[in-house]
């Protein structure tokens, strides 16, 4: 336990020091890593812990991003207020989508969420919503400046803002998953009937898991919109949802730290692979997805856990 706290402390210190050691473009990329980590944690709560497969989480990310952008663009809301607002909207939306999803098991839920992911860009382009969403053009928002005259440039300030939100979300997620609720979620995943018999309200927990998962992803979407300064329908296609799926499979299903490994993977691998060809990142993603299912079903987090246990056993 002490080792883990020490490790977390070192991690936070490194995370605070990093933006001063790298260029502001790299800082922007690191911000996106944090954003993806929150989104992946959200998807992992639903798919990893609760066993409900979602192939459409990009839709909730899009919803969060659009909430943030519309609130800033149309209502002039401050940037720090739009993040919880987006989370709240996505919590409700996820809960509502989770209600019909209760009747869908395994493959069928995957199908329904896949359809949601594919249809999302079209919904965002819908011309009756154009007044708010800006249609195909999307919305451009300004990058927030550091407050109180703190001498930090915008990219670095946003990184620290995102880091703070990430810490809050991870503490929330950790608290949620290590206790009674987390065990209930896992019980529902592993033994649906037995968990019901043990007094767990399956329907409530499953739709709540959907809501909370969407909330995490929505918060990530809002932060992502702030970082990229731009939202447009075509950046939230079904491939975004697939990227998230790649992230949790590579990072590790049903693992909190896995979200961070997954986020690093989906942010930096395409950068490296892009140099080969425009299509290469996706080919690599696909190969990694299949490869991890065959060879390392617990992902990077599982492999690290295994190594640590082996070392301790020696």
């Amino acid at each position, binding site marked *: 336990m002490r080792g883990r706290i020490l490790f977390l402390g070192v991690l936070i210190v490194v995370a605070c020091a990093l933006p001063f050691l790298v260029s502001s473009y790299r800082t922007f990329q690191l911000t996106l890593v944090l954003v993806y980590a929150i989104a992946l944690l959200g998807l992992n709560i639903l*798919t990893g812990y609760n*066993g409900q*497969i979602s*192939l459409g989480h990009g839709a909730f990310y899009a919803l969060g991003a659009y909430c943030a952008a519309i609130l800033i663009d149309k209502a002039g809301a401050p940037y720090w207020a739009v993040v919880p607002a987006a989370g709240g909207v996505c919590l409700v939306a996820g809960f509502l989508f989770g209600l*019909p999803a209760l*009747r*869908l098991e*395994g*493959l*069928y839920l*995957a*199908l*329904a969420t*896949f*359809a*949601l992911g*594919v*249809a999302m860009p*079209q*919904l965002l*382009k*819908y*011309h009756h919503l154009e007044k708010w969403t800006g249609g195909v053009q999307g919305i451009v928002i300004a990058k927030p400046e550091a407050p109180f005259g703190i001498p930090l440039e915008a990219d670095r300030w946003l990184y620290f803002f995102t880091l703070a939100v990430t810490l809050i979300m991870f503490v929330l997620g950790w608290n949620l998953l290590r206790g009674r609720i987390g065990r209930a979620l896992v019980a529902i995943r592993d033994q649906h*009937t037995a968990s019901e018999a043990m007094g767990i309200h399956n329907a409530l927990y499953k739709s709540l898991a959907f809501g909370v998962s969407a909330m995490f992803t929505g918060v990530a979407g809002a932060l992502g919109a702030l970082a990229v300064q731009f939202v447009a329908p075509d950046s939230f296609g*079904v*491939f975004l949802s*697939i990227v998230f*799926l790649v992230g949790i*499979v590579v990072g590790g*299903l049903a693992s909190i730290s896995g979200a961070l490994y997954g986020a690093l993977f989906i942010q930096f691998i395409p950068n490296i692979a892009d140099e080969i*060809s*425009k*299509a*290469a*990142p*996706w*080919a690599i*993603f*696909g*190969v*990694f*997805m*299949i490869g*991890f*299912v*065959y060879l390392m*079903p617990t992902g990077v987090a599982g492999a690290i856990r295994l190594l640590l246990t082996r070392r301790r056993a020696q």
Partner: protein
Amino acid sequence: MTLDAVILQVLAGLATGGIYASLALALVMIYHATHLVNFAQGEMAMFTTYIAWSLINAGMPYWPAFLLTVGIAFILGMFIERIVIRPVENAPVLGVVVVFIGLLVILNSVAGWIYTYTIKSFPSPFPRQPILGIHYISAHELGAIGVTLAVLALLYGFFRFTPLGLAMRAAAQNPESSRLVGIRVGWMLALGWGLAAAVGAVAGMMVAPVVYLDPNMMSGILLYAFAAALLGGIDSPGGAVLGGFAVGVLENLLGAFVIGNELKLAVALVLIVGVLLVKPSGLFGRVYVTRV
């Protein structure tokens, strides 16, 4: 909304419906054999359509290229089952879904890599002028419906009247007993995948002249095929075909008169979620009862 316009939309809907029906049929074939929904079905069809494009561009006449592509698709489908799907046959659902999505992504990116993402036109084997003086429907649409129906008839004949078709049905229905009477169940599954890929290839080649060829051309069509398969009942081949035509007509009528073309994919989403909620077994599917 005149009667003429309605007839026009219904006929156009039947033409696209035929394509949904073929792809839905491919999905049902794989579902029937393995109880898996193949998310990569659309990308498999897209990839084989690119192969047909290469063959035609290399100077091969249309119909030989068509047949050769169907053959290649068959072999490709068998390969995919043997190499990629076999190892996860008994894995949990999540693992299987991830493998399917991985396959989708790989096929999509490899097609983009080889053929680039620029949109290509694909030839239609049918004349440009409407045939038989019918002005409601183009020759390609009529031809596509004809090809779809021919494929259906062939498949029906194959499964109903040949020993191999019987063996495949047996393997899908009761693998253990089939194995005991000497049917090689594993190979039957591979054959099923091959057939599904071949049917998908036909659908791809029929739809490509309409939507043009690009690596992402199938995502919307796959969604409609899902809707069609679910509407008809995901384990009923006949239901999938009827579902395909119904969804095609519904899509065109709604698109033309009610909600406009912008929300066509949302229609598919509503259909999928609606069918799953109201009648998960579809119109013609079997209701499964499990004991807990």
